[in-house]
């Protein structure tokens, strides 16, 4: 018999995940692409109506299946640590998929197009309501200027006072990097605040 103890031969790597959320067309995929070391990749999840909340879908083989696409990118932080950025599926009817994506994430960025604030309300609402992971709001500066101040956006989207809001350009790598750094700093500060409880 072959030994099962292979693990000692394998250099252990670690990975971590950031969720990129926001309304349709807000710039999620653009942000993922600009910070990623690889071209943004699309993967697909096949969804069956009956699969939601059930383990066995074979009992209802005639349910319609839907394919949901997700974009993701990768940053090799160092030899042992890889960070993935996952864009959430845009359509509202795939909210249930967000739970799977959000589970185990370090934090989330809600990308907001200031010209279409209402498009991002549901994403903000999701993270405000669930409060499972730290999130920040990133205002995508499409034409070089913003129509609203960050505080006006905070009020309009009902973002908690403690949640950082910053403006950025999703097409710009350095600007996108600043968004990720802001999220990590915020996540570390909220983890530190929560530490005595855990």
């Amino acid at each position: 018999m072959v030994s099962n103890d292979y693990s000692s031969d394998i250099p252990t790597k670690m990975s971590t995940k950031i969720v990129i959320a926001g309304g349709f067309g807000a710039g999620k995929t653009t942000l993922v692409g600009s910070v990623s070391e690889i071209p943004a990749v699309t993967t697909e999840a096949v969804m069956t109506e009956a699969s939601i909340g059930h383990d066995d879908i074979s009992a209802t083989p005639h349910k319609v299946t839907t394919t949901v696409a997700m974009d993701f990118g990768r940053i090799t932080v160092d030899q042992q640590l890889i960070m993935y950025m996952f864009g959430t599926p845009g359509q509202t009817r795939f909210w249930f998929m967000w739970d799977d994506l959000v589970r185990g994430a370090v934090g989330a960025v809600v990308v907001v197009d200031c010209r279409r604030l209402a498009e991002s309300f549901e994403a903000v609402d999701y993270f405000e309501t669930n409060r499972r992971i730290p999130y920040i709001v990133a205002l995508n500066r499409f034409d070089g200027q913003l129509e609203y101040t960050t505080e006006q956006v905070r009020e309009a989207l009902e973002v908690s006072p403690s949640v950082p809001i910053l403006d950025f350009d999703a097409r710009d790598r350095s600007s996108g990097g600043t968004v990720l750094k802001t999220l990590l700093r915020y996540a570390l500060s909220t983890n530190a605040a929560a530490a005595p409880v855990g």
Partner: protein
Amino acid sequence: MSYRKRRGSRIRPYTFTGGRTRSRHPLMVQTLVSTADPSNDPPAKLMPESQRIYVLCRETRSVAEVSAELKIPLGVAQVLLSDLAELGLVYIHPTITGNSPSENQVLERALRGLERLFQ
């Protein structure tokens, strides 16, 4: 021949997984996986899809990358990888969520890395 080539995509995803839609191991989209013994050929008893995963994972990659590169849905990749891990053929690397002090150290490392990469 063309029929054979197209056959793969006609099979319902859950046919591969014996009807199961949940994996036994905590495999998230970002979880890294690698073939336990990369110098070995995939065991002949494995299904073709699992053999492809085995070969692909000779280099460490995430569940999402396995799904994207082999063009198999995420849920299917998760179940097949879970089975390979159960057989001791695939190694599952740890995932960092930042929910413990030791994980926070890793997040601090990640932040330093980002500061270096995005100056």
